């Protein structure tokens, strides 16, 4: 059977367009699966605290994490849920990775796999200075989180995993 036209387009054109559409859909799906979050921006402790002070819309949760830290990975879905639920009220989630610089792409991939599409950060300062400037009571163990009120004062800190309920309770009082 020879090529026949179907309406205004030849059948081969329709097949080609259909294949092209399928390829594009497949490529899009793959890109979604492997999407990275925006490249992590290097920061020191002063810059982290400046980002907190510069956010006037509501509370800020600063979370120090690393890809190699199992409890950090485990609590990340709770952090992202908090962000989804409370961002309309001005809540900001500030993720700071303590991964080594050579691991920053891996960190972006991990965040991307969880759908993170906002700016996150990479610790770029000597540990001792960074830790003491963020919180003198932080020993250095990960994960570590600080919840700042809208006025920049500290509401609570967590050395170790936090839970969604703990933060949600503080944000909805």
């Amino acid at each position, binding site marked *: 059977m020879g090529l026949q036209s179907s309406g205004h387009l030849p059948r081969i054109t329709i097949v080609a367009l259909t294949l092209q559409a399928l390829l594009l859909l497949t490529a899009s799906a793959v890109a979604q699966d492997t999407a990275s979050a925006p490249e992590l921006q290097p920061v020191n402790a002063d810059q982290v605290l400046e980002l907190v002070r510069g956010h006037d819309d*509501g*509370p800020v949760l600063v979370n*120090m994490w*690393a890809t*190699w*830290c*199992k*409890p950090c990975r485990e609590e990340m879905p709770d952090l992202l849920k908090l962000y989804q639920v*409370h961002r309309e*009220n*001005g*809540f900001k989630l500030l993720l700071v990775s*303590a991964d*080594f*610089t*050579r691991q920053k792409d891996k960190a972006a991939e991990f965040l991307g796999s969880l759908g993170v599409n906002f700016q996150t950060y990479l*610790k770029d300062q*000597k*540990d*001792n200075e960074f*830790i*003491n400037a963020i919180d*003198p*009571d*932080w*020993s*250095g*163990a*990960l*994960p570590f989180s600080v919840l700042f*009120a*809208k*006025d920049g*004062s*500290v*509401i*609570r*800190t*967590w*050395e*170790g995993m936090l839970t969604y309920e703990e933060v949600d309770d*503080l*944000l*909805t*009082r």
Partner: protein
Amino acid sequence: MTARNWNVPVVVLLAALVLPSLAFASDALSIGAKMPMMDAKMKNVDGAMVSIGEVKGDKGTLVIFTCNHCPYVKAWEERTVALANKATKDGYGVIAINANDPTEYKDDGFDHNVKRAKNTGMMYPYVVDSGSKLAKAFGATRTPEFFLFDANDALIYHGALDDNAQDASAVSATYLQDAMTAHMSGQPMKMATTKSVGCSIKFYK
């Protein structure tokens, strides 16, 4: 009350109620504190039961909380073993302690301790702190974490090995080495406490 309505008095009140219970770092031994649990026996990689008191040296004792799985431990490993081996020759007793619950990380099981001690060339005991009792008594929170005691078992240094885990060639402050040098020469210590990022100790439940 919504997140938009936080005000200073409420925040101050909440902070006053909550923060005192969260001062984790203050639970660590203070400089000058006596070494705790010196007689507690722990299983060494050779199968023998060893206490810190038994490894104590003429100059003092270096206690290292460490593990096998942590990238920060691995990044510092070569430098740690080199300095710790040197410390044994300088008259310090040295002991490495793994306080992690191996059910959290298989790599922190006893057999892995044996392999790691052998592969890295440790010239000192590497023991299991079953129950994380020593880690809790010291107030250790992460790996690696170093506690240096003098000959009278008083803490003289607590903290990190140096100031750069990820790049040995970029180290600008050799904290622990400096503490030992100052101690051995009777000089005042420049930094008796330092901090580093590390893997949280996976305490036995």
